[in-house]
């Protein structure tokens, strides 16, 4: 009985040691980048260039694709018309009147 208890204790100690060793070596690489990563020489751009608008060119040319493109173009042309209408409105604004 006493032997078995001692054996369990030894095994537990050995297993604990192995676990501790593995834990240490697994966590160590994760810490390395903190100290090893070098600072970039130039900061990343804070304002990326505008994304290309390839809503039409990116799709295929099947009949279904063409129909989908037409829907996209309908929306885009409508937006252009809205912008044009806003230009119209800017010419319709009246300056402040001084009525005394």
């Amino acid at each position, binding site marked *: 009985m006493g032997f078995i208890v001692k054996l369990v204790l030894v095994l537990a100690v050995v297993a604990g040691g192995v676990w501790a060793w593995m834990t240490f070596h697994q966590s160590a690489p994760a810490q390395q980048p903190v100290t090893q990563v070098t600072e970039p020489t130039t900061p990343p751009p*804070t*304002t*990326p*260039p*505008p*994304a290309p*608008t*390839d*809503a*039409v*060119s990116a799709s*295929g*040319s*099947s*009949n*279904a*694709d*063409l*129909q989908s*493109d*037409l829907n*996209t*173009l*309908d929306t*885009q*042309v409508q*937006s*252009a*018309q809205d*912008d*044009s209408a*806003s*230009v*119209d409105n*800017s*010419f319709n*604004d009246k*300056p*402040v*009147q*001084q009525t*005394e």
Partner: protein
Amino acid sequence: MNALKTIAAALLALFIATPVSALSVTLGGSADASASASTSAGNVNITAAIQARISKGKDRADQEIQRRIDSLNDLNTRIQAMVRLTGQQKSTMASEIGTQISTLNDLKVKIDADTDIDTLKADIKSITDAYRIFMLIIPQGRITVAADRITDVASDLNAFSTKLSARISAAESAGKDVTSIKTTLNDMNAKITDANTQSSAAVGLIGNLTPDNGDQTKAAANNAALKSAHADIKTSVQDLVTAKQDAHTIVKALVALKIDVQASASASTTTQ
């Protein structure tokens, strides 16, 4: 693209050049306010009338300032939606618009604190004379935004035209009569080209406009340039509408030919 960047820079310069402290203008007028009243009751009536006019003037001024602030905010929203400006350019312009709004708010505070009707009248007048928000900045900004959109849409229409051209060639190779479709495609391409031409012309017209600062000749020239650019934008948008209608006509005709390509966009065609 470069032209749009140029106009954006010009617009930014305009924001910077716009006076921000032209508030101390003396007012004339209100001669009746100094009318000699022979009785104390008459003086009371005149004072009350002046106060009523001051109150009314402040209300109107506040409304006009708010209208300009709303328009500037709207312009900023449109600028942020532009696709051919960099984020940095948008950020800078947003900052300058914010400065304009801040200045208008300062003017509002000054007007609200005015107690003299002559000073109040001068401050109200400065809303239009000194800032030119509606006379120049807003129209110029919106034309720039519209031109950006037109260029973007024209680019997509052009890409679509290329697709249609390939489909038409495929149909022709399959023995279909595409004469009418080709004519429509030519019209579509012409409209796209003209849309770009008109849009560029609009941008060119307003690129170098600066506040008139009371110079009537310059004000007239600015107004003429803005109106001409406005006409160009309208023509350009109408071109886009026509080009889009042409595209619809072409697709409808292609579908009627019962020739399709695989969704994988391969060059092969299938007869349905």
